[in-house]
């Protein structure tokens, strides 16, 4: 009896200690993640709730201190997004930017990664060279781009008669494509490294075996390399989409705020113009929410695609 009692008592005691230990773990986990979660609340949750709230009002920026009641207008801001031609133009420009950056990134990025994926002297140099624009301030590189893209600049002299007379940035046809190419160029090094990482995780024997079997470079590319890097390719599509919708600094500085006549205005720039230049904070918030939902859907689609493959 007593031995059983004692063993039960010991087990209970051990159980109590265990729960006390797991409780301590719960507390430690909560404390350790507290700074990040506090930040997430302050910088994500509260602003998100504020954005949703503001987007249902004709909210305007006023002088600090002045408190004005803003009229509740329901979903008017959201219906305006669907009908406003300026907004449609901005989303159209984003689509154009996606249609340019995605193929350029996949094509050139994969090509450079393939070239880097074999022992070679100076590999480190090339990797660094490709990555530099990605970690350099856009504002600094834009200053160079503005000079190179001037009507009498280097790119015009390179293209000769094919270059637009007013320069690339004043041309309604060229402004958005040239900004898209700049954006693609700037972040390309990042994707080269991602592709390189994916290529390196494909066993070298697979390439060698295929080569032994007489598969040419083109065949090896389409049957081994391309399927091997598919997860990175879907990531390219998602990240390029997010980037293109939110381009701000390039049109703000290169085409004097999305010109000529809105030809290079993006949704990201439109939020700034509507919110800060015209004071329509309610409408700008609604734009932000719509972009956020759009990006969430794209990311979830990618994650699903990723899992199934």
């Amino acid at each position, binding site marked *: 009896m007593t031995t059983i009692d004692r063993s039960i008592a010991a087990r209970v005691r051990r159980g109590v200690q265990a729960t006390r230990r797991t409780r301590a773990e719960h507390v430690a986990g909560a404390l350790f993640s507290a*700074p990040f979660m506090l930040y997430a609340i302050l910088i994500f949750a509260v602003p998100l709730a504020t954005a949703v709230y503001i987007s249902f009002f004709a909210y305007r920026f006023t002088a600090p201190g002045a408190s004005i009641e803003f009229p509740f207008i329901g979903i008017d801001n959201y219906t305006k997004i669907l009908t406003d031609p300026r907004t449609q133009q901005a989303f159209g420009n984003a689509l154009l930017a996606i249609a340019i950056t995605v193929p350029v990134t996949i094509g050139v990025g994969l090509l450079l990664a393939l070239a880097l994926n*074999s022992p070679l002297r100076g590999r480190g140099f090339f990797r*660094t060279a490709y990555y530099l624009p990605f970690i350099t301030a856009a504002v600094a590189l834009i200053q160079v781009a503005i000079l190179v893209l001037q009507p009498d600049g280097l790119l015009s002299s390179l293209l000769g008669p094919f270059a637009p007379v007013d320069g690339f940035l004043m041309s309604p046809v060229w402004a958005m494509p040239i900004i898209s190419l700049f954006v693609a160029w700037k972040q390309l090094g990042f994707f080269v490294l991602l592709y390189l990482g994916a290529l390196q995780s494909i066993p070298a024997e697979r390439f060698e075996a295929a080569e032994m079997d007489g598969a040419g470079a083109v065949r090896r590319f389409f049957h081994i390399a391309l399927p091997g890097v598919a997860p990175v390719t879907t990531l390219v599509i998602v990240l390029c989409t997010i980037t293109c919708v939110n381009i701000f600094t390039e049109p703000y500085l290169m085409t004097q705020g999305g010109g000529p006549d809105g030809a290079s205005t993006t949704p990201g720039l439109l939020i700034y113009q509507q919110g800060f230049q015209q004071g329509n904070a309610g409408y700008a918030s609604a734009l932000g929410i719509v972009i956020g939902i759009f990006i969430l859907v794209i990311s979830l689609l990618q994650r699903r695609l990723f899992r199934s493959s």
Partner: protein
Amino acid sequence: MTTTELIVTGRRAQHRHRPGASARRRRAASRTIQVVALSLGALVFLFPFYYMLIVSFSPSWTADWSVLVPGQLTLNNYAELFESTNVGRSMINSAIFAGGVVLLTQIGALLCGYALAFIRFHGSRLVFGTVLLLQIVPFQVLLIPLYVLVTRSYGLGDSYAGMILPFAINAGVVFIYRQFFLTIPVEMIEAAKLDGAGHVRTLLHVILPLTRPALVTGVVLSFVGPWNDFLWPFLITKAQEMQPLAVSLISFQSNIIQRLDNPTGAIMADATLLMLPSVVLFVLGQRWFTTAGLGGAVKE
């Protein structure tokens, strides 16, 4: 067996009989193509940096190709920039802004990454989900409410705290640390626990010394974001003496610099000052980076 496989096996037999010259020649040719492609790429990527540097050290600027040939080099553009603008103050602002972000990010991300990797606790899935979510939310989405909150509700317009706050903890860096911690053998944590070390001691004395490569990646990534950013500090710094380098460059450009002898040279000098710290930090830290670490900021 498919037809392709049949063809392939047939070819393999042929290959065995004649190894050598043609294959070697083909390999040499593909090698040449490879080097040419890589060099062309490097030219396209490095050209703007060369352009920026050479113009910043040249006495004058022209739009044509002659500007690329280094002639007489001078520090005059830098001297004029420092004399006519308070670019020095801007550099200090940028350093405080980026330094604050780097510090806060390391503290928050190391703690959170440790919790996600080594502690089993209620809500860990919520925390991890938040980390993933915050990585894909672009800044512009919450631009308006953040501006309203930071300048009006929190009263932090024209302050370092207001600049730092939206960047304070980089979710990508949390993710990098978590991923790195997961590669550390659990036995090390358990050994530390048996020795009576709490989580804080384990993190500081067992984990941190092993974390150097990830730490370098985390510091560089969290530095580059605020140092390079334009939009947020542009919105919340109205006073020029509070503006970081990226913002003040644009302000100087539209007024003071236009009055200088060689405005383009001065702008390129300013751009060089803005470009250099991120590049230097990246090149110095490079041997510690792993592709996975750099990709980790966004990759699941």
